[in-house]
C-alpha cells in the first residue's frame, strides 16, 4: 500500500497558489481590504437592525452574532479551500480539465488545489471577530464541551459549504448555463444562515435542514451552545450536527465522480 500523501500534495498546491498571488501584491492587499470592509459593513447593518428592533423573534443580538460568526467563519474557510471548485466551470469551458485528467491524482484534490485564496482572510477575520464578540457578550460560560461543539459546528459548516462548491462544479459537467441557481444556495445559504433558521417559514427551514443541512450549524446545535430551551430538538441531534456537513460533502464527492464519468464519455 502506498503512503497516502494527498494532504502533503494539497499543502504544496496551497504554497504555490499563495506564492502566485503574492506576485500581484497590490491586488492582493486591495482585495483583502475590500473583502474585510464589505463584510464589516454587512455586520454593521445587522447591528443597526437590532438597535432599532431590540431582538429578532426572541433571539438577542449576541445570539444572532454567534450564528453570523459561525456561518461566516465556516464559509471563509470553505471558500479558501474550495475556491478551485468555484471557478471550475471556466475550467471545463476552456478545456483545461483535460490537463487534470492527465495527472495521476484524484481530480477533486487537484481542483481544490487549483486556487487557494488568501484574500479570504478578510472574511475569516471578520467572522472570527464577530464570533469572539458574541462569545463574550453571551451570558453562558464557555465550557470545554461547548467549545468543542462550537469548533465542530464551524468545521462541519466548512465541509457543508465545500460540498456546495463541489455540487456547483459538478453541475458544470452537464451545463455551464444554469449555475446562477446554485449561487442562490451557496451565497444565499450564508445570508440565510446568519440568522436563526427558526425565523423563516417551515418549508424553507426544512429545505435548509434536510436537503442542504445549513440548520446543522444554526438552530440544531443552538440549545447546547446558547444554553437555551431545546424546543423539541433531541440532545444527540445537537451533538451530532457537525456530522451533517461531512456527510453532505461525501455525497457531493460521489456525485462529482459521476460528473467526471459523464465528462469523459462526452468529451466536453
Amino acid at each position, binding site marked *: 500500500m502506498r503512503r497516502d*500523501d494527498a494532504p502533503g500534495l494539497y499543502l504544496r498546491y496551497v504554497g504555490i497558489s499563495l506564492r502566485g498571488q503574492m506576485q500581484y501584491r497590490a491586488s492582493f492587499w486591495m482585495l483583502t481590504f475590500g473583502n474585510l470592509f464589505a463584510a464589516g459593513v454587512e455586520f454593521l447593518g445587522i447591528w443597526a437592525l437590532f438597535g432599532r428592533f431590540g431582538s429578532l423573534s426572541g433571539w438577542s443580538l449576541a445570539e444572532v452574532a454567534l450564528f453570523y460568526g459561525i456561518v461566516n467563519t465556516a464559509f471563509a474557510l470553505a471558500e479558501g479551500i474550495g475556491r478551485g471548485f468555484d471557478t471550475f466551470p471556466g475550467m471545463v469551458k476552456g478545456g483545461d480539465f483535460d*490537463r487534470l485528467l*492527465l495527472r495521476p*491524482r484524484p481530480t477533486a484534490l487537484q481542483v481544490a488545489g487549483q486556487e487557494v485564496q488568501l484574500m479570504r482572510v478578510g472574511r475569516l477575520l471578520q467572522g472570527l471577530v464577530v464570533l469572539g464578540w458574541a462569545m463574550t457578550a453571551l451570558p453562558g460560560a464557555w465550557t470545554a464541551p461547548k467549545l468543542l461543539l462550537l469548533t465542530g459546528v464551524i468545521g462541519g459548516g466548512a465541509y457543508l459549504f465545500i460540498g456546495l462548491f463541489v455540487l456547483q462544479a459538478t453541475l458544470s459537467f452537464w451545463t455551464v448555463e444554469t449555475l446562477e441557481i446554485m449561487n442562490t444556495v451557496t451565497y444565499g445559504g450564508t445570508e440565510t444562515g446568519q440568522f436563526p433558521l427558526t425565523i423563516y417559514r417551515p418549508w424553507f427551514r426544512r429545505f435548509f435542514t434536510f436537503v442542504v443541512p445549513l440548520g446543522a450549524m444554526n438552530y440544531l446545535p443552538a440549545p447546547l451552545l446558547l444554553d437555551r430551551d431545546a424546543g423539541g430538538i433531541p440532545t444527540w441531534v445537537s451533538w451530532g450536527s457537525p456530522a451533517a456537513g461531512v456527510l453532505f460533502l461525501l455525497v457531493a464527492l460521489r456525485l462529482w465522480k459521476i460528473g467526471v464519468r459523464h465528462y469523459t464519455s462526452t468529451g*466536453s
Partner: protein
Amino acid sequence: MPQIVVENLTKTFRVAERDPGIGGALRGLVRRRHRAVAALGGVSFCLEPGELVGYIGPNGAGKSTTVKVLAGILVPDGGRCEVLGRVPWKERIAHVAQIGVVFGQRTQLWWDLPVVESFDLLRDIYRVPKADYARSRNELIALLALEPLLDVPVRQLSLGQRMRCDLAAALLHAPRLLFLDEPTIGLDAVSKLAVRDFIRTLNRERGVTVILTTHDMDDIEALCTRVIVIAGGKIASDGTLEALRARVTRERWLLVDLEDADATVTDPDAEVIRRDGHRIVLAFDPDRVATAVLIARLAARHAVRDLFVQNPPIEEIIARLYGGEEPARP
C-alpha cells in the same frame, strides 16, 4: 508484445444544434436538438515499443479523439483499446502515471511559477523518487538547454522556450510512451529544429515510443518511420512514408529554371503544374518517360539555367489522399 492495441474503435459525439438569432437561443433553452457526429468509425492499429509514428489527418478527422482515448481522458463508444496492458479509461490514475502527454496549444505548466517549481510540483504529483527525479531532471535540462529558463515564470517564456519546458515536464517521470499533439505548432524554425532533434534523441536513445500528431509535414519527414493517416474517422493509410508515397502516386517533379520567363513549355509526357516567373514545375511518371529523356528534350528546346528532380512534397500526397475534402469538426 505491442504497447498499444486499438481495435475497431468507435466514438460518436452528440452536438447541440441551435437555430440562429435570439429566438433560436431561447428555443434551445427549452428543447435542444442534437446531431450525431461520428468522430471515429472503426479505427484499428498496433504500436510496437520504440516506434515513432506520425498520426496525421485534416482537422476533424479524429486525430485528437484518438489521442484522448489513448490518454484515458475520453471513453469510446465501442471497440478495444489497451495501452501498456491497461484499458486507459478504466484505470486512469495507473495509466496516466505511465505516459507523457504534450499539447502544443496548451501548457501543462503553472503560469505564474518559475519553471523549476513546476518541475518540483510534478515530481510530487507523479511521486517520482528523489534520485530518479534528480537524474531525469538534469538530463532533460541538458538535452533541452533549459538552464537559463529555470527561474523564469512560465508566462514570460516565448512559445519555443515554453514548448521545450513542456516537453521536459511531460518526461520527468520517465514515461515509456509519449503523446505529442502538434508540438511544433506556432514555433519558429530554430525552435522547431530543437524540438525535432529532441524527439529523435528521445526515441532513438531512450527507446521511448512516440505518437505525434501534426500538420507540419516537415515534422513527419524528419522524424517518423511510420505514418498513419486518418480521414473522416477511418484509417486511410498506415505504413512507411515511402509506401505512402508509392501508394498515392508514382509521380516525380522536375523543377526547371528557364532563361526566358515567357517561354511556352509543353511536353507529351509531362504536365506543367506550376509556373512562377523563371521557375516551371513539371509532373511526370518515371515509368512512362525516363527522367534523362525528359531533361534532354527540354534542354534541346529551351535555354535551361538550372534544373532538379524531386518527390512531390508530402503535403501534396496527403492532400490527394484526403481527396481535398475536409469534414466539418464536431
